């Protein structure tokens, strides 16, 4: 089918903000000229703490197929403890990319032939001045560095807009710190 669509699957836990993170990236991508942006959360019921995922599709052209991603180009994991519960790389394309919230080194994690990028987003959030456990802004910085798809400054602005009234500058700072401290494995 269409090969112009970049498919990104976001894994998190209910309440962790994976949907918000994907929505911010959607906004940043659209602002960068990607006309086709579709973000589809897991359909159905959602429990706090339970594994959830969100599909984000990005293209230069309008996207018509809203079905969930089955063969992602990239997966983003907000919580490395999910690795014990969820096959986060299910269907990942060959030479796909995994962006993981975890302490370096990247070589500590292997997913077949996938490239792996790690950033200790949990720690960077605290360093930015956010309460412990806020990871959905920081992970965007790691995503920006690892993928190069959307400029970090555009994403930082999208973060500030999304978090209006909810520590916008600190959340943007968390993303910038994570961006500077993202390590991509060989």
């Amino acid at each position: 089918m269409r090969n112009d669509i970049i498919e990104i699957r976001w894994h998190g836990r209910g309440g962790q903000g994976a949907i918000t993170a994907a929505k911010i990236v959607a906004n940043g991508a659209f602002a960068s000229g990607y006309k086709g942006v579709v973000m589809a959360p897991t359909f159905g019921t959602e429990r706090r703490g339970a594994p959830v995922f969100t599909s984000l599709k990005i293209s230069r052209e309008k996207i018509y197929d809203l079905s969930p991603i089955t063969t992602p180009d990239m997966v983003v994991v907000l919580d490395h403890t999910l690795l014990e519960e969820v096959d986060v790389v299910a269907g990942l394309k060959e030479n796909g990319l995994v962006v993981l919230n975890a302490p370096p080194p990247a070589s500590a994690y292997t997913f077949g032939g996938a490239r792996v990028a790690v950033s200790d987003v949990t720690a960077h959030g605290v360093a930015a001045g956010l309460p412990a456990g806020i990871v959905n802004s920081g992970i965007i910085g790691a995503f920006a560095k690892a993928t190069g798809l959307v400029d970090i400054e555009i994403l930082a602005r999208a973060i500030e807009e999304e978090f209006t009234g909810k520590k916008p500058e600190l959340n943007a700072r968390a993303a910038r710190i994570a961006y500077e401290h993202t390590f991509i494995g060989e």
Partner: protein
Amino acid sequence: MHIIESGNVAAATGVKLARAQVIAAYPITPQTPLTEKLSEFVESGQLAAQYIPVESEHSAMAVCIAASTAGTRAFTATSANGLLYMVEQLHWAVGARLPIVMCVANRGIGAPWTVWNDQQDSMSQRDVGWIQLYANDHQQIIDSVLKAFKLAQTVSIPVMVCYDGYLLSHTYMPFDRPEQTEVDAFLPPFAPTHFLDPENPGNFNTVTLPDVRPGVDGTLQPGYIEIRHNLHQDLRAALATYEEIDREYAERFGRGGTPFVEPYRCDDARFVAVAIGSLSYQLRDVIDQLREDGLAIGVMGVQMYRPFPDEAIARALAGKECVIVLEKALSYGNQGPLYGDIKSALYRLENRPVLHNYILGLGGREIRTQQLLDVLARSCANPGEIEDTPRWIGLKLQEEHHG
């Protein structure tokens, strides 16, 4: 200005721009975020409306009927069993000729319970007399809501704006949010000549005898059957009215021009797939693939289902070899409802296309692009005879019983 939001928020934004004055709704998945958003708009003062919480959908529609009778712009929204719980009031709203607008986030009907998408809920209400519009994406949701308010008050008939639950209601995509001043120019305030007014008492919807009878002023007044004939005629006339409203909308906002059906690569097509809602857009990628394989096929989305745009559909499908109708609804014991309506619309043609009917996606069963490729390729390879028994896509655990 473009924003990225969910389909429910697109709908709520349209209702806000339309300056609805009374909103009464009961939350039900997947409609809930729409009514939550509207209550936020009202609470924050962005929308000067009365938001009336109710204990059921029946009451939601009753409140809208009262508010509309009193001459205000009324809105509600629901899904599935919630829609069915208000059915008696749906009939009342249209019989009373009230320009209420309602969004339906399409969801399968229990039993057994499902919260996921199909279109059985609103399709099963096709004979109520409400106008039904269906949106394929978020832009069409917000545009349809605005056009619906104008259409409803122009023809004095309530309008449902339907969109796929979850697939559209909970999915985020970019859409243009029109400017308030431009919407105000397109959609003037609702100013009925005849409304419930304590200063000017009148009777509304009294018992109407089988035959005509003199009114209080001595002139003969219509009986029930004349009133119903008027409704039917006005619904048929609403086709032209909607075409005009859609044209005006396109001139002002640059979007529209396909009020009834939205064809894609149909002009030179020998085969045409037909669907309602987001499925008709999903099929575009499938059509592109089949075209690359050399198959002359297109897809047509149906955007207005009642009144049924039979002439536009017959025009679009005349001369085609085979028309494949894919539906997320079923008239149980017969066929898909759209299939039967299309067959009826094509009956007068001299060279009638062969028709195939597929049922799919009920209760949210995932519709895979590969499945669509397979069934369309199969139908095109062997159109054969018209098939009045629908085929089912994606059944598991059991064989499809066909025939």
